[in-house]
């Protein structure tokens, strides 16, 4: 299974927070789209990288609202605007760290995607996806 399960404390009202960090540079555009699937409903949040080291911070909601929720985080690293010499190697090593906090435990999950798709067609794009299942 590639989905990471995150155990929440039953009945907890603590908030669940998600941080997305990356070690990339050169002004690569990093777009993060978070979707939370709970039963038949879908909540969506989008953010582009900010000016802090933690590129994206999300408040997913209270524990009670996140039970049996599938959180899908799509990250796109777009190198299209970069006119400097970048080695593909730099981006093959690109690491995005997704941290979930709150709820019962203070688990963190560091995700190094080894199956990065690099597309060089008028630019380069790297797409990563990480999924968490929040349960009790």
């Amino acid at each position, binding site marked *: 299974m590639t989905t990471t399960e995150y155990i929440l404390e039953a009945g907890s009202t603590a908030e669940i927070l998600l941080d997305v960090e990356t070690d990339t540079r050169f002004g690569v555009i990093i777009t993060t789209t978070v979707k939370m699937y709970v039963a038949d409903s879908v909540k969506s949040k989008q953010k582009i990288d900010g000016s802090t080291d933690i590129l994206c911070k999300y408040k997913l909601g209270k524990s009670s609202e996140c039970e049996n929720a599938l959180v899908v985080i799509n990250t796109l690293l777009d190198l299209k605007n970069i006119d400097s010499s970048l080695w593909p190697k730099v981006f093959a090593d690109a690491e995005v760290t997704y941290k979930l906090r709150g709820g019962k435990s203070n688990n963190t999950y560091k995700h190094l995607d080894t199956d990065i798709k690099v597309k060089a*067609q008028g630019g380069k794009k790297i797409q990563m996806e990480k999924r968490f299942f929040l349960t009790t």
Partner: protein
Amino acid sequence: MKKYIALLLLPLLHCAQESQPVVGLNDLKTPDSPGFQILDIAPSTVTRPDNPTEFAVTALQLSENGSIIPKNFAMEFSPFWFVNKNDGIYKYYNLHQDNNRNIFAGVLRKLSVSLTSAVLDSTKTGLPGETNMMAFGVRTNLITLRTKAQSDRFAEALENYNSAVGTLLTESEAYTKLNTELVQHLTEKRTIEKALELGTLSDSERKTKEKELKKAIQKVEDTENRIKDFHSANFEDFATAIDKDPDVKAFYKLTEEKPAFQLDAAFAYSEAYPDNSYANRRFNRSGVWFTGTLNFKGLDESTNDRFSLLFSGRLLQDNVLTDAVAGSFERKSAFDFGFKLEYALQKLTLGVEHISRSYSDAESIDSKRTVGILQYKISDDLYFTGTYGQNFGPDKPLFTLFGVNFGFGKEKLSTKTE
């Protein structure tokens, strides 16, 4: 560090072997390193730093006497990018969301260090043989000023880009259906696990639940694989769709917009090695210079064309040949002042540059450089650069040059150039 040392040595090995290099061509800018500029063999003497290059190797093919001699090279790198690993788009373009911009942010980010070697024909100056020129250079951006309107436009375009990409990335019906299926299977799996965790089931009930759990896990894994296949099958279309999206295209176009004003500085020091011998080493020239650039909108906003006016002042210490027979030189101070007018229209950039060089106590050797410069972007990774005109020197030498610049990567040189 070993990797970087190996990369530093690679171009030298290439020059020695004169074989076809297997290097990437991510960025092919004109070889305007300070090292080439101090030797007066760069395509343009009045330049500004572009976006930084972590490490690049420049190959310059200098056309002299109708022959092309690939003996010249330059290495240039930006130390900041070896250390800094967190500069997202806002920091990179100095776009602070609170509008608190730092006009000096480019000092470290655009600082680059270069090492240059060029073999020049000494017979033109009356000396025998060839002279290998080695130069060390540093350049950076001191001030970058964008107007508030420019920053606001950029920030808005970035938001539109983000929204467009997010929609393309996750809004498809098939993708939503797969994730909805996955959440159902994960919920089913967790429900079974909870029943097992209670420990109140009979043996037969537990065995049944364990079988159900296996099936549920299989369903989860199957759906995860289908999501993975979905991404693999659609990534190419997705990447193409992004590049074709109007909001994304508008943003890319805006990244090409130049700041209203830039002030750049450079320093270079060069030595000459006649007959490529260390024993014959002598000081050649050193200089420090400043370049101010004003960028203006062009004639037609839809084409994103622009005019740039650059002014440059350069203080030089020059080792001037005073006696060709005896091979004696004398150090003299000189001051260069000049301008460059540039017009950029889509893939084509045209420029004219004029610089006057005045020696403090030797007016007889004052000279001028007037050249026309053409650059054409053949593709994202391939540029053609040509310079033609009169260079510095007492004989008003004709100056012709074609250059390429490439970085390390996995693609072959034969596929792309700038």
